[in-house]
């Protein structure tokens, strides 16, 4: 069943359109992650679903019912704020119980639900504390607890982990993954900047750019088959290498040349295109491997080497001046100024036309 549908939704602030033409269906129980560069409208879209921002045009359906004008509290939606937004003058118990108190839920029922949420999030020892007496991670759990207590059908998270340090972020991410398992019927929409959070938590990722959806898909689909240059560059870390290439479309297939030399690839179809275009060839740093000079697709000089422990990243400059990153196992000893010859599996190459759209593979 569809929990949330956005139909051609738009939002502008005084003439400036920040959300344009967003069409999206989120299934019940699904975990959807919004990613995109800062200012692309992720929070705005989330807050439109929550009801905290109005919708200028288009329709929002919740459980199939028109919900543009339904007040936030009646949408069956709970939200976890980036700043946690805990009420500073209430203790943890009161924070958790607040929505139920406002809804006139009976005392025993409030006790039961708060206790259940506190148990689930290991907050029981802190119920009497004020938010400022809690650590960042504990505050985060209280914020999530507030959503759980309401037994909302939909949880919205706006960058919930961005205020935590790296270790705690990993721990809390795993908690959220567990929460997702326990609350399998709860639909979750999650905004993040973090690639790892998006890849690990999401059933589907929505890539936003300048208020538009660039692509929606399972994490691996976005990784393997980005629809355009933007998604290709956004998903994956370090980002995909882009190299200028000349594309010639002939008889439904594509020939790729770099610096006048043809490249052997498993065929990209032309997708109906014709003629010659200046396109882009894409290859991920982790898909590059050392090769003999004769078999190499790319050759370049190492500018800088970064040792990250398990992997080593080489920042290179190709013969024609294009920068390129390659990721190797740590077993590889690399030196600055060294000339590397690299190859990649043809199936790991991506090709984009002059408009930045990916060419379909055969």
């Amino acid at each position, binding site marked *: 069943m569809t929990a949330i549908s956005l139909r051609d939704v738009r939002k502008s602030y005084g003439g400036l359109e920040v959300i344009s033409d967003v069409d999206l269906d989120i299934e019940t129980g699904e975990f959807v992650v919004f990613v995109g560069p800062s200012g692309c409208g992720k929070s705005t879209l989330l807050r439109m679903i929550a009801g905290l921002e109005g919708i200028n045009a288009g329709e929002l359906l919740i459980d199939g019912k028109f919900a543009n004008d339904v007040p936030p509290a009646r949408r069956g939606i709970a*939200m976890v704020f980036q700043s946690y937004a805990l009420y500073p003058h209430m203790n943890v118990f009161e924070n958790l119980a607040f929505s139920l108190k406002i809804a006139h839920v009976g005392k025993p029922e409030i006790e039961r639900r708060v206790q259940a949420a506190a148990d689930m999030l290991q907050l029981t020892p802190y119920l009497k504390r004020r938010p400022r007496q809690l650590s960042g991670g504990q505050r985060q759990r209280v914020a999530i607890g507030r959503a759980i207590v309401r037994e909302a059908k939909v949880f919205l998270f706006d960058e919930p982990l961005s205020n935590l340090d790296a270790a705690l972020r990993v721990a809390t991410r795993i908690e959220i993954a567990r929460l997702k398992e326990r609350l399998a019927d709860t639909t979750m929409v999650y905004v993040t900047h973090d690639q790892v959070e998006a890849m690990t938590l999401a059933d589907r990722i929505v890539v936003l750019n300048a208020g538009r959806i660039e692509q929606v898909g399972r994490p691996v689909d976005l990784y393997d088959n980005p629809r355009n240059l933007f998604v290709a560059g956004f998903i994956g870390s370090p980002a995909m290498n882009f190299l200028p290439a000349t594309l010639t479309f002939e008889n439904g297939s594509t020939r790729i040349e770099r610096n006048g030399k043809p490249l052997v690839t498993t065929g990209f179809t032309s997708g109906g295109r014709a003629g010659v275009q200046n396109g882009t060839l894409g290859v991920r740093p982790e898909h590059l491997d050392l090769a003999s000079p004769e078999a190499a697709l790319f050759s370049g000089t190492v500018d800088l080497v970064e040792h990250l422990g398990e992997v080593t990243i080489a920042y290179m400059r190709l013969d024609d001046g294009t920068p390129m990153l390659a990721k190797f196992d740590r077993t590889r000893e690399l030196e600055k100024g060294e000339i590397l010859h690299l190859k990649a599996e043809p199936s790991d190459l991506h090709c984009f036309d002059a408009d930045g759209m990916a060419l379909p593979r055969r």
Partner: protein
Amino acid sequence: MSEAPTQATNPARRAGRMLLLIAVAVLMSYPLLWLIASSFKPESLIFSDPGLIPAQFTLANYLEGWNRLGVPFGIFMLNSAVICVLAIVGNLFSCSVAAYAFARLEFPFSKLAFGLMLLTLMLPFHVTVLPQYIVFQNLGAVNTIIPLVLPKFFAVDAFFIFLLVQFIRGIPRDLDQAAEMDGCNKYQIFWHIIFPICRPALVLVAIFTFLWTWSDFFSQLIYLNQVEKYTAPLALNLFIDATSGESAWGMLFAMSVITLLPLFILFVLFQRQIAEGIATTGLKG
């Protein structure tokens, strides 16, 4: 600020600063100390022996002064207290509601209204006294406490509203929105979230309202004209007999000390909250 620690470690400078502060403190509080000392002296010694240590100690001023005006002085204190309590309740309620509206709600001409309200800060009190008096006279409310407390329920103290607006603007809007998600309407957001969080600012409002109302002489003089309804400051005025020049100074001083007592107690009790309020409201320049 950065050099404060080095100064503090220099004992000579520290002692010098201490002496200076003590000197200033004594200088500032000398009139008050003199008032207290004089209230324990027999009437005849007040001006002939103006030192701080009384040559002769007596409680007569207190005992006599308490009942001198035909009505026990406690009644005047009570009258003052009633007016103060009502004024505080009125100000806490009305100024915070008004401030919430200015800080958080969007309504037509809200900016203009806020500007006008700030303008009233510059309006001298004396300009409005006469028209106000006529209004209350027509309402038949003169010689009651209504003119003194009723306006407080309609957010007339622009300064407090301004103070609270600034404070509320500092509260993250996420809290309002979290409360909205939790099912609160605007009134509930105000009552359950904004009002309690404003506590440090509200303490200031309450204390300043108390101070200003307790020591207000002018408007109480205008509106109250029966001795039984008099407040403490008005009662103190009765000890000064301007026509015969035979004022009961000793009793005046004694009753003044009693009148000051609540202020003193208040400051001792709420010192911490006052400091906190001044720090968090940005009242300090």
